[in-house]
């Protein structure tokens, strides 16, 4: 437990770079408490955090295990609808719903992963893609359960109920709970991001994380060292799916409305962009990737209508970013240390001379 961030924190001996980092983080955390905090900015910040969770979760598969998962949005959708339906029909608390959604995500992860994770890269990508399309079709067509294209409105948004406080202390304080608005979601999202971040950090350092890296770098060598490829891949896939489902569960309670359109393939692609931009195999990079791409998307969303283009064309920029990334920085801006060795110029030259067989 020595290398947890707060254990390393030593206020007497802190570099300028770290000081700026901590100050920025503190500013972001305190910002919503001010009355001048803009609702729109808060909304974007919460959205960024939802995608941070998704990007960290997805990174396990392409970044750590070296497989392309194009169906991540399927687990996001499963988590969201699980949470939404449980809230509407049973009125369960958020803290009960999140583990249930994660469990449901993990179950589907195992159901999909166990038979398909034997497959090689391209085939696996296609199977996961088909899975996410089937999830969208299910959500659209099973009207008795999901109301189909009409969407699922009226999900109780209350996560922390303040009304008892208000009646107990002073009913006149209602304005304060109104002022809070999105703020509880903001802090809840911060909590979830921090939770996933810590879990990811612990996993990366564990036996599990090392097994994944071994599988990504050389599956044959890993399996001859006694790493059971399928087991570790399925575990990774289930964890990744569960994290996606948690993001979905949060989304359901935050937006109060779900529709199958929210879980189309584009979302998978967007999350993949974040992972690749931030660096394959580096979950801290995923945080940066999510923040950059969502902020860029919001800027484009404001700029594009001015140019007379539909806001959806921001995907044009995303597509181009992906192509250029793969061309010039295939491992992202902050690659994992282990993959940096792969980008060693001597190794690349050697690979070119021998002809890449992978």
């Amino acid at each position, binding site marked *: 437990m020595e290398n947890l961030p707060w254990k390393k924190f030593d206020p007497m001996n802190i570099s300028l770079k770290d000081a700026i980092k901590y100050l920025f983080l503190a500013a972001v955390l305190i910002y919503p408490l001010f009355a001048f905090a803009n609702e729109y900015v808060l909304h974007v910040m919460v959205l960024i955090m939802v995608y941070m969770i998704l990007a960290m979760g997805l990174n396990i598969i392409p970044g750590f295990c070296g497989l392309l998962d194009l169906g991540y949005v399927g687990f996001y959708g499963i988590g969201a609808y699980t949470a939404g339906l449980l809230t509407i029909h049973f009125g369960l608390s958020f803290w009960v719903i999140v583990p249930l959604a994660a469990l449901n995500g993990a179950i589907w992860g195992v159901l999909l992963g166990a*038979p*398909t994770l034997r*497959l090689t890269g391209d*085939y696996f990508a296609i*199977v996961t893609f088909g899975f996410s399309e089937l999830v969208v*079709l299910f959500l659209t067509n099973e009207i008795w359960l999901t109301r189909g294209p009409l969407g699922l409105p009226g999900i109780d948004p209350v996560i922390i109920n303040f009304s008892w406080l208000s009646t107990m202390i002073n009913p006149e304080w209602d304005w304060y709970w109104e002022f809070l608005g999105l703020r509880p979601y903001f802090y809840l999202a911060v909590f979830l991001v921090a939770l996933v971040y810590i879990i990811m950090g612990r996993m990366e350092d564990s036996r599990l994380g090392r097994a994944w890296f071994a599988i990504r770098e050389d599956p*044959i060598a890993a399996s001859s060292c006694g790493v059971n490829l399928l087991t570790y891949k399925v575990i990774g896939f289930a964890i990744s799916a569960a994290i996606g489902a948690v993001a979905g569960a949060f989304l359901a309670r935050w937006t109060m409305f779900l529709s199958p359109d929210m879980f189309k393939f584009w979302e998978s692609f967007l999350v993949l962009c974040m992972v690749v931009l931030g660096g394959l195999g580096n979950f801290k990079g995923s945080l940066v990737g999510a923040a950059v791409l969502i902020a860029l998307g919001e800027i484009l969303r404001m700029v594009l209508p001015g140019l007379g283009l539909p806001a*959806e064309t921001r995907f044009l920029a995303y597509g181009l970013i992906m192509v250029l990334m793969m*061309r010039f920085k295939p491992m992202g801006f902050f690659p994992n240390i282990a993959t940096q060795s792969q980008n060693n110029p001597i190794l690349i030259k050697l690979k070119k001379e021998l002809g*890449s067989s992978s």
Partner: protein
Amino acid sequence: MFEQQLINGLTLGMIYALIAVGYTMVYGVIQLINFAHGEIFMLSAFLAVTFITVFGLPLYVVILMTMGCCALIGVMLDIFAYRPLRQSPRLAALITAIGMSIFLQNLAMIIWGSRPKPFVQEALPSFLRTTAVTIGEANVSWLQMSIFITASTLMIILFLIINKTRVGTAMRALSQNRTSAALMGINVNRVISFTFALGSSMGAVAGIMVAIYYNTLYPTMGYVAGVKAFAAAVLGGIGSVPGAMIGGIVLGIAEALGAGYISSLYRDGIAYGVMIAVIIFRPSGILGKSTVEKV
């Protein structure tokens, strides 16, 4: 009703087969799932309508011109997006292909708008919508007849190119072993470009056919059609051209019958379901050879 569904399915299947050969040839030669192939199919429909409305050209000329343009787009795609990544990991090339697909789709949205458009009816001979023959209780329209005839002709031509010409031999050699092919004096990049051109022009014809058949075109049409064609390629055995043809026809019929007898809501789901099942249980497909996995 059964005969009618069968005829409709066969028509669709012919179209899927035409797109699927594009996927399967590219996969056979460079082991890349060219996700942007569906977008070339979509671009062809828009280009055809543009040629008709702007230049007022007859349909036959437009089809040839669109084939040429799409072949060019396919070659450009290879040169600018895929060629720099020949030595990179497979993951990078696959992500680039998805990136190009999204890019082209949104480019089309900017150029032609995101709303569905009807095909230019004036450009079509009026007899196309009338019944050509009646088999049992099923009516086959002239349009369906033309689709059968055009698609079969194209496939025969394709078959001849692949099996009887020098460049076809080079393509087959490349799909066996790229390094040895290069050692035998084959210009690898030129053959790959030719493969893209050939596949894209087949996809172009399919794009125009679908636009006429459903009388609608929209920027996202390449996405679903592309996935189904890929499913067809997988079903037939990816890398195998006759497999893609058979896979397309089987998938088209399965889809039409499934939509007619099981549930029309899961029409697209049948293709995905077939694809997942085939990949899990028989990754080599109907005609594919089971290859030893290269590491």
